[in-house]
């Protein structure tokens, strides 16, 4: 029952906060856009992922509690 992380690539303008706040799952490509290492959020990173998604200035990082 873990959450899924997704980037809305249309909303994303490459602020790059997500890679600072959730480096375990997100890195930036050579143009400053996020690369997700998988969609499933490990239980230990759940809170961090939630805060990271809330911090995105463009609201482009989406966390869904998918079954």
């Amino acid at each position, binding site marked *: 029952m873990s959450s899924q992380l997704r980037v809305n690539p249309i909303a994303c303008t490459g*602020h*790059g906060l997500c890679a*600072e706040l959730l480096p375990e799952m997100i890195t930036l490509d050579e143009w400053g856009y996020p690369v997700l290492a998988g969609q499933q959020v490990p239980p230990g990173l759940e809170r961090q992922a939630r805060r990271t998604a809330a*911090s995105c200035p463009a*609201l482009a990082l989406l966390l869904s509690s998918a079954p």
Partner: protein
Amino acid sequence: MSGITSGTALWYASRATGVICLVLLTAVMVLGILVNRQGRLPGLPRFAVTGLHRNLSLLAVGFLAVHVATAIADPFVTIGVAAVVIPLASPYRSLWIGLGAVSLDMMLVLIVTSLARAHIGRRLWRTLHWLAYASWPVALAHSIGSSGDLRAGPLLALTAACTLAVAGAVGWRAICTIRTAPRARRVAAVLSGQAGAR
């Protein structure tokens, strides 16, 4: 009149917190534009810019609450609770206090929608956030008109500095927007090797 009565203390508190609000909101405006332009503060990570913008705006709300409360509580002038949010409801200096109410109303919208950002959706939040560009100048007008404090001495210099800071930031943002390739030309810009296509 010598000696400070409690009434005068409230009046001074209101004016002082008003000045603090102006400074804080100036910082919030400049930081907000910095976030939008993906600018950095030297030596600080990216999330610091967003974090400062957010935290200072909440701090400003706190000082604003004191500013408003002390102004209403002050027995020397009659403002009335309604005038806090309803423009022109204050018998004292209707217009200038009214502008304060307008600015406060807009600030309320900004703060509430930003706290509930994830729930109201990206587009609505973004559209409403544009109110910031209206809220600050209205707050400035309120500050200048409500008392003579900012029209002389060091506070005048402070007001000028704040105005310059916001005007500079807004001007910078406008120039960047004009120079950015429109969506339909972004790829062509990358193809011809221009940096900053997006």
